[in-house]
């Protein structure tokens, strides 16, 4: 129904707003292009599958379960200085064409896009293209001709961005410079592919086209993360758990890019993380956060252009990792350096500037021959020296976990080095190293100070995954395993509760139920003749209020059941407890999930008396309190359980109709059907008097 309404609304909107703004043109046999060229608000829903151009307009475009793919161009093209706010609703799928230079959402230089809303966007780039940003070309471009992508801002939403070949997940495509990416909120999973960064720029250059573009000349631009959750990797492969560096090292991901920053051969001139949660991984020489992999030859390298500057502050929670696919022990590049987790890629001359301040929490793990924080330790392509960071500053409010295989965890040889004693304590226990073999089993990595008091662990190994758990709402996903609780049962005397599955529980029983799930139940009264004062069951019951005299309820033969529907739900909170008597609804804390039905409006205690005196007059109730014919020789059992009683008081379930029997000296002389209900004159009381007219 919502979709229908959305389509109708969208249709009305399009009819009323778009006549002047929308032009349609043929692009391929199946689709026409919708063009938005005037300011306004628009909705693209599942009914509109053709490609979309937004040209020069300041527009708000709601992607409401949109589905645009399989066209011979970018699915959405923002151009001519357009300023577009995409509002994400539902689950939208936007894809470029892997055989055509294209993006999912192409943002031309001079235009900008902002993502808001609470929906999910699955967006995929096409050939040489970013998922969101620009596509590129396989021709290396002279600097004067080089273009940038437009500006990209994410305020909220769930965005899963999968690059096309050699593109970034979010940012620039192949041979294109980054511009400005700002992330203030949302949950973003971004994956570069085949030398493209997760967030930043795509494949820059390998240096093979020196004279046209050297390593360092392409750049990822300005990347600012102020909030949200950001997961960025350098290729997308569902079978990988990106936290499993051992598995990554044993494979060949084929990426030379940073998780956040530069693609292969590209700088990262400004990465600023001021808040939010960030998890990034580079591989095969690319930094986790920083520049991409460089080269080994000076003529292919531009020393002046190459930059890798990372600034982390505020309350940012950052996890950065690198893995080198060629660093398998005994392999051809076993001793080659990986990129730094935070810093430069392999084949560069400097680790650049790294500043970590504020109250940031940083976890940095580097696989082989590279510090977790600093410059990759492969020889510089400029002079063959071991590169160092230009500057490393770590403030005293920082929480830092850093570990490296075969190198210092933090590059102590940085040209400018300032690390607060509050972080490490003393210089003797700053840095930790493990060899490559040891780190192959990442889960066992434990970096310890051998001299100091502090113990540092390389966390969170095995607990961080870059993989986005994407569940298309139209496809069945994995159901989360429900949490269980043991629900304790407490009932009024001689009553029971029966759940919707037919199970009957008595006071002191427990039943396993799912936390958060609502269960219906009804109240029942039991057959008193089945009560046993000598029951030993009490020792099995955890609640002191339990009586071993609970008796038995059985359909049609023993006791009565009520008609009022009660519900119980165990909350996932420890302090949520309530009984809504109006709705007959119990909510119990998971720390103390005891269902106490011995409360108002769960039962009525009926008290039977006789108008003309009670002497030697008794009351019984069919199937509840009646003469079983068993002579207990006037024992306690006889009077309490198996005989009609004077002044009978019996707990009964609301909505049932019981058949009461009047006795004179245990000889039946009258019957009455009694509907069990709240006393309208005393609705807050749990008892009601029934007076026989005798």
């Amino acid at each position, binding site marked *: 129904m919502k979709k229908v309404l959305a389509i109708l609304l969208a249709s009305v909107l399009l009819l009323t707003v778009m006549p002047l703004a929308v032009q349609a043109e043929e692009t391929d046999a199946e689709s026409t292009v919708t063009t938005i060229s005037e300011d306004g608000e628009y909705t693209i829903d599942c009914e509109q599958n053709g490609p979309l151009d937004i040209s020069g307009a300041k527009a708000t475009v709601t992607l409401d379960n949109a589905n645009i793919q399989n066209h011979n161009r970018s699915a959405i093209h923002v151009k001519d200085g357009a300023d577009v706010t995409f509002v994400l609703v539902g689950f939208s799928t936007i894809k470029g064409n892997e055989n055509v230079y294209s993006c999912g959402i192409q943002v031309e230089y001079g235009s900008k896009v902002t993502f808001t809303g609470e929906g999910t966007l699955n967006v995929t780039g096409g050939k040489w293209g970013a998922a969101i940003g620009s596509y590129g070309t396989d021709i290396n471009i002279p600097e004067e001709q080089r273009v940038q992508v437009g500006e990209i801002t994410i305020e909220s939403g769930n965005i899963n961005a999968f690059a096309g070949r050699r593109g970034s997940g979010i940012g620039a495509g192949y041979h294109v410079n980054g511009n400005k990416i700002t992330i203030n909120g949302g949950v973003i999973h971004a994956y570069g592919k085949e030398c493209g960064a997760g967030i930043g720029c795509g494949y820059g250059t390998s240096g093979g086209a020196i004279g046209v573009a050297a390593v360092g000349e392409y750049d990822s631009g300005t990347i600012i993360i102020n909030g949200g959750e950001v997961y960025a990797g350098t290729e997308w492969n569902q079978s990988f758990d990106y936290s499993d560096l051992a598995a990554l090292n044993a494979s060949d991901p084929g990426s030379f890019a940073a998780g956040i920053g530069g693609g292969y051969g590209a700088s990262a001139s400004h990465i600023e993380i001021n808040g939010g949660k960030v998890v990034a991984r580079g591989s095969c020489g690319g930094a986790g956060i920083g520049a991409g992999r460089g080269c080994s030859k000076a003529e292919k390298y531009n020393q002046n252009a190459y930059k890798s500057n990372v600034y982390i502050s505020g309350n940012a929670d950052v996890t950065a990792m690198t893995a080198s696919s060629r660093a398998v022990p005994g392999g051809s590049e076993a001793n080659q350096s990986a990129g730094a987790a935070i810093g430069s890629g392999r084949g560069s001359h400097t680790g650049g500037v790294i500043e970590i301040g504020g109250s940031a929490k940083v976890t940095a793990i580097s696989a082989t021959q590279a510090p977790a924080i600093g410059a990759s330790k492969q020889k510089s392509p400029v002079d063959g020296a071991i590169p160092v960071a230009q500057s490393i500053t770590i403030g005293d409010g920082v929480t830092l976990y850093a570990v490296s295989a075969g190198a210092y965890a933090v590059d102590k040889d940085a040209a400018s080095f300032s690390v607060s004693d509050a972080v490490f304590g003393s210089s003797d226990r700053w840095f930790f190293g493990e060899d490559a073999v040891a780190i192959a089993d990442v889960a066992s990595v434990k970096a310890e100070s051998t001299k100091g008091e502090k113990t540092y662990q390389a966390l969170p190994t095995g607990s961080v995954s870059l993989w986005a758990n994407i569940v298309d709402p139209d496809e069945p996903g994995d159901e989360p395993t429900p949490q269980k609780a043991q629900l304790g049962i407490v009932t009024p005397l001689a009553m029971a509760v029966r759940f919707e599955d037919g199970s009957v529980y008595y006071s002191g029983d427990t039943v396993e139920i799912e936390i958060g799930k609502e269960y219906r139940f009804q109240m029942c009264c039991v057959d008193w003749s089945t009560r046993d004062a000598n029951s030993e069951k009490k020792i099995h019951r955890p609640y002191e209020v339990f009586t071993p005299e609970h008796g038995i309820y059985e359909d049609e033969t023993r006791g009565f*059941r009520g008609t009022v529907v009660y519900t119980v739900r165990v909350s996932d909170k420890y302090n949520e407890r309530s009984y*809504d008597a109006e709705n007959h609804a119990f909510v119990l804390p998971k720390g103390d999930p005891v269902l106490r039905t011995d409360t108002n409006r769960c039962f009525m205690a009926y008290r039977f008396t006789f108008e003309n005196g009670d002497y030697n007059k008794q009351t019984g109730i069919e199937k509840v309190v009646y003469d079983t014919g068993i002579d207990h020789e006037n024992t306690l059992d006889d009077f309490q359980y198996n005989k009609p009683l004077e002044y009978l008081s019996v707990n009964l379930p609301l*909505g049932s109709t019981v058949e009461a029997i009047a006795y004179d000296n245990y000889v039946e002389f009258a019957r009455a059907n009694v509907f069990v209900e709240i006393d309208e004159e005393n609705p807050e009381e749990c008892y009601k008097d029934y007076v026989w007219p005798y």
Partner: protein
Amino acid sequence: MTLKIQKWTAVLCSLILLALLATSCTKDPNVKAKEGQKNEYNVDMNSSETTETELPGFHSYGTGKTEPVTVGGVSINVKSYAVRSYELAYMMGQKEFSSPNQLSVDVLTQYGFSHVLLPNLNETTNKTMEYRTATLEQIQAELQKLFGTVDADLTKAELYKPSEKIFEMWMPDYGCNIYYTIDAVNVEGNKADIITTFYNELARSTMLGRTTLTVTVQNGAAAISALKTE
């Protein structure tokens, strides 16, 4: 040839009987019979009482003055009202009232709710744990048919769930056989007193009780207006 025809007749009769039994087994008691639909198991009052036999399931077995009567120009199905008498007196425990407004809101609601689900409450199967819901309008419509206008705020009933604005109920176990004889139908003006004796068994050897149900016709519709039980 004659013998063959008799055999075929016997076979056909057996098949018809089996079909009838099969129908009874698959009948959903929660699906209300359509207006005017004949209950296959009610005793045909035109036949001899000696043909009464117990049938599977729960049914009403009536004898006596079971012919419809006309009250205020409206034809009254007295057999139906005999069953209503039983429902009110024994299932709902309401032995006597001189106006339906004397019935409690809980009784009215549960009775109306039950009739939303079943035309004759004794025909329920007493299945375990059957959860049912009804709207205020549905219950009010049933009560209108049974009692005419009733001044009661049904949302005060225990079966009402304010958070969802619905009525919900576990099906009561009202299933039973009803054995009765309509002793007299006294028509006076727009009223009819239907006097019914109920028994504990088909043979009618022990009496359960006797009711006098008053049906009043107003604005062309009959409605229960009073009940007495002995």
